[in-house]
C-alpha cells in the first residue's frame, strides 16, 4: 500500500509537491478517486489526495461565477447552484456508476478530465467554462492562471491545458468556473424506430434548425429498453431524443414545431420536464443505459456525421450523443477490446479520438487508453509535460505509457 498525503491548504499542497519533486518521488494525484478507473493505471510512490481542499470560496449568482477549492464534491456544487436556479453549463457526467460507486467526484476532477454531458453541443465542455485556477506544478511551484471574470485574454490560456490533463501537469488547488441560469423547463421530442444512419441525419436536421436543440441522442433498442422512462423502455424499438429547454411556453412551442417538422420521418412523442430530465441524466451518466459491468467502455469523439459509420464498423453495444459526434461503446474486453477496429474507424471518419473509459486493469495497462497522437504532436505534448513537471512526478503514465 502506498502512503497517502492529504494537504489541507495551498501551502501544504505546495510543500508536499515540492518535497516530492526534490526526491523525484512520484504522486498519484486524486480528488475523491471516483474516476480512478478512467485512464491508464498509475504506479506512484504516494497518493496525493486533494479531497481535503474543500469549500466554496465565492459565489455570487448575479456574476455567473463560482470559485471553489478543487476538492469540493461536485454534488455539493451542483446542489448549491440549483438552490439559486443555476447550473454548470457543461452538464458534467456522473461517471461513478460506471465504476460501481455513487460518488460523482470533485469539481477539480471534473475539470481535470474535461468531461461534458449532452449539453456540450450547445454550451461547450468543462474547458469552455473553466475561467481560472490556482495550481501547484510538478516543480512544486504555485501558479495562477486565467482570472475570475468571464472574458479574459491576459496571457496564455493555461486553463485550457489543465482541463483534460488528468493531473499530469499540475495539481489544481482552486478553480473558478462560469455558471449559467438553469432553464425553467425542458421538453424532449422522441422519434421511434430509426436506424443509426437515419437517426444521425434526423439529428443533423434538428441541430441545423433554429429551435435551439440542447441535446441530440440516439438509443438503439438494446439501450432504450434499459431506460427508467416508460415511454422509452416500452417503445420496443430505437429512440432519437431531442431536448428543447427554455421558458415553459418556449420549450413547449419549439418542441411542437420540431415534432411537426420531423413527424413525416417517424412516429413522434413528447416528454415533459420530469421524464425529460430523467432521460437526459441517464444519457449523461451512460451507466444506466450500458449497464453490463463485464464490458469495456469506450468514449469516442468524431465528426457527428460519422457516428453511424463508426457503430457499423465496430460490433458493440452503444449509444450516440452530440448528434452522433459522441459514441459510447460497450465492447468485449477480450483481446484489445476493439481498439484497432475503433481507431481504424476514426481514421476513416477523418479524425477524432477514442478513450478507453473502463476496462480491467491489465487491459488498460496493455493498450493505449487515450488516442495515440501522431509523432510531432506526441513530441510537443512531451515537451509541454517537461515544462510543467520535469521530474515526471505527477500521475506518471496516466495518459500515455512512459510519460
Amino acid at each position, binding site marked *: 500500500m502506498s502512503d497517502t498525503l492529504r494537504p489541507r491548504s495551498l501551502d501544504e499542497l505546495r510543500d508536499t509537491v515540492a518535497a516530492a519533486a526534490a526526491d523525484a518521488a512520484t504522486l498519484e494525484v486524486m480528488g475523491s478517486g471516483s474516476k480512478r478507473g478512467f485512464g491508464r493505471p498509475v504506479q506512484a510512490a504516494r497518493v496525493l489526495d486533494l479531497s481535503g481542499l474543500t469549500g466554496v470560496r465565492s459565489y455570487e449568482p448575479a456574476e455567473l461565477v463560482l470559485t471553489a477549492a478543487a476538492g469540493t464534491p461536485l454534488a455539493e456544487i451542483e446542489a448549491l447552484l440549483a438552490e439559486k436556479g443555476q447550473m454548470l453549463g457543461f452538464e458534467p457526467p456522473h461517471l461513478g456508476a460506471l465504476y460501481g460507486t455513487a460518488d460523482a467526484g470533485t469539481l477539480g476532477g471534473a475539470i481535470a478530465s474535461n468531461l461534458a454531458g449532452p449539453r456540450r453541443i450547445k454550451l461547450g*465542455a468543462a474547458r469552455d467554462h473553466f475561467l481560472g485556477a490556482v495550481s501547484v506544478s510538478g516543480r512544486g511551484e504555485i501558479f495562477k492562471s486565467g482570472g475570475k471574470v468571464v472574458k479574459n485574454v491576459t496571457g496564455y490560456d493555461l486553463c485550457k491545458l489543465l482541463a483534460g490533463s488528468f493531473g499530469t501537469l499540475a495539481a489544481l488547488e482552486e478553480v473558478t468556473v462560469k455558471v449559467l441560469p438553469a432553464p425553467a423547463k425542458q421538453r424532449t421530442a422522441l422519434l421511434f424506430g430509426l436506424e443509426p444512419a437515419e437517426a444521425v441525419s434526423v439529428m443533423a436536421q434538428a441541430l441545423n434548425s433554429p429551435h435551439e436543440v440542447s441535446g441530440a441522442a440516439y438509443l438503439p433498442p438494446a439501450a432504450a429498453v434499459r431506460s427508467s422512462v416508460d415511454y422509452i423502455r416500452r417503445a420496443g424499438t430505437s429512440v432519437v431524443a431531442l431536448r428543447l429547454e427554455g421558458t415553459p411556453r418556449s420549450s413547449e412551442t419549439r418542441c411542437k414545431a420540431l415534432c411537426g417538422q420531423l413527424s413525416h420521418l417517424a412516429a413522434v412523442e413528447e416528454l415533459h420536464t420530469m421524464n425529460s430530465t430523467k432521460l437526459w441524466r441517464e444519457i449523461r451518466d451512460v451507466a444506466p443505459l450500458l449497464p453490463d459491468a463485464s464490458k469495456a467502455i469506450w468514449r469516442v469523439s468524431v465528426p457527428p456525421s460519422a457516428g453511424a459509420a463508426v457503430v457499423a464498423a465496430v460490433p458493440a453495444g452503444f449509444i450516440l450523443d452530440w448528434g452522433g459526434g459522441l459514441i459510447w461503446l460497450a465492447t468485449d474486453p477480450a483481446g484489445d477490446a476493439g481498439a484497432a477496429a475503433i481507431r481504424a474507424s476514426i481514421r476513416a471518419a477523418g479524425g477524432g479520438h477514442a478513450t478507453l473509459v473502463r476496462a480491467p486493469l491489465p487491459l488498460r495497462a496493455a493498450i493505449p487508453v487515450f488516442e495515440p497522437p501522431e509523432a510531432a504532436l506526441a513530441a510537443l505534448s512531451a515537451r509541454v509535460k517537461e*515544462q510543467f513537471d520535469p521530474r515526471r512526478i505527477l500521475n506518471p503514465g496516466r495518459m500515455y505509457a512512459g510519460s
Partner: protein
Amino acid sequence: MLTMPAPDESVLARRAEIVAALRAIVPGEGVIDAEEERRAYECDGLSAYRQLPMVVVLPSTVEQVSAVLRYCHRQKIRVVPRGAGTGLSGGALPLADGVLLGMGKFNRILEVDYANRCVVTQPGVTNLGITNAVSADGFYYAPDPSSQIACSIGGNIAENSGGVHCLKYGLTTNNVLGVQLVLIDGTVIRLGGKHLDAGGYDMLGVITGSEGLLGVVTEVTVRILRKPATARALLLGFPTLEAGGDCVAAIIAAGIIPGGMEMMDKPAIHAAEAFVHADYPLDVESLLIVELDGPAIEVDELIAAVKEIATQCGAVYSRLSNSEEERARFWAGRKAAFPAVGRISPDYMCMDGTIPRKQLPFVLGRIGELATKHKLRVANVFHAGDGNLHPLILFDANKPEELAAAEAFGADILRLCVEVGGVLTGEHGVGIEKRDLMGAMFSEDDLAQQQRLKCAFDPDGLLNPGKVFPVLHRCAELGRMVVRGGAVPFPNLPRF
C-alpha cells in the same frame, strides 16, 4: 518608454543574403524588400508604435510557411506573424531584425460542411467572410468583433477575439474546432478537427489567444450556428451611469442571457449619433442596447421581462426594434463607436479591461475621477453583459505631454480593473501595449510558468519576441528548478 528586444546585428548584416534565401522559398512578389512597400506593414491597429520590418514575406502555401520558418529557425532569425493588422495591442508590430510573415494570401474558404455545422478555411479570410459564405443558407459564425469586415480569422484565433454576441455564444476559443499549425522549426501539426474536444492535452485551447508566439496558423475549422429565428433589440436610456449598470446586473440576475448587451456613456452616444445617425437619445447619461435572440415566442417573453426590469431600474427611454433594418441601425452606432470617437479627437487610445459586473458603477465613477486627474476626456463603450470595458481615452499625439498622460491614464484604468477583481484585457490581447502591466495581475512564478509553455513550442524565442511578457527569460534558466533573475536587456524602441 516601451522597449523591444535589441536587434541582432549579425542578422541585420546578412540582410541581402536572407532576402535572397527567402525569395528562393517564396518566389515573385511574395518577398517585399523595398522600403516604401515595407512601410505598409510598420504598424497594426495600435498605430502609436511603428517599426519597419527587415523584410516582409507573403507566403501562399503551408509548404512555404513551413520552409520560411525552418529557414528562420536554422538561421536564428525572428519572425512576426501578421493577419490583417487590425490588432489593437501591437501584437503584429514588426521587429527591425525580423521577418514579417503576412498571411493575407491565405484567403480562401476550403469547405462548408452543414452536416457537421462547420467551415474549414484559410486563416487570411476575414471574420465576416465566413458568415457571408454561409449566410444565404441561414447560418453564421458567432464571434463578431466590430472589426469583422477587416480582421482575419487567423488573427481572431491569435487574439481569442470577442464581439458583441460573445455573452451568449462565447469567444473565438469556444467556436474553433481545429487548426493546422506550423511550429517555428517548420513542423506542421493538426490540432482538433470537425470533432469536439482534443484527445490529449488541449493544445488548440492554448494556441487560441497565444498572440502569434507559439506557432503560425495555416488552416482553421470553426463551428457555425443556425441564425436565430428572431432577434430584436431594445434601446434603453438611463439618467445616470449607475442606473444603466444596475440594469445590466438585474437582467443577468433574473436569469436572462441576452444575445448582446452593450452600454455607452454620454460622450460615446453623442459621437456615435453624430457619425451614423442611429437615432440615439441625446439627453441620457447611459444607453443600453439589449438584444434578445432565439425562438420568437421566447424573445417576446424576454423582451417584456427586460422592459419591466429597465423600468424598475429607472429607464427614461425605451425603444424596441420593429424591423431588421431598425435593429441594424441600433447596432450601427455601437459598432462604429471607435471611428466615431476618432472624429471628435485627433487620437484615441482604447482600453480593454474586464471587471466583475457588480463593480461597473464604482469603476465608471473612478474612471471619471481619473479623467479629471489626467486632464483628458474619455468616452466609454462596454460589452456590459460580460463586464468588458472599452474606455476610449481622447488625446492629441502631437502634444507629447498628452500622449504620456493618456498612457498613464490607461495604465491607471487597467490597474483599477485588476484591483476590483478583474483582468487587463478581455479581448484585445496583451501585445506590447499591456506587456509591462502583466506584473499587476500575475506573480513572477505565474509568468514564469507561462513562459515555460513558450519554451515547449519555441525554445529560442524566435516567434514574436517582445510581446506579452515584460521580461524575457532564457529557457535554460526557466528550466532550472530554482529560477533567478537574469533578464535579457532591452534597448529602447523609438516611438512615433
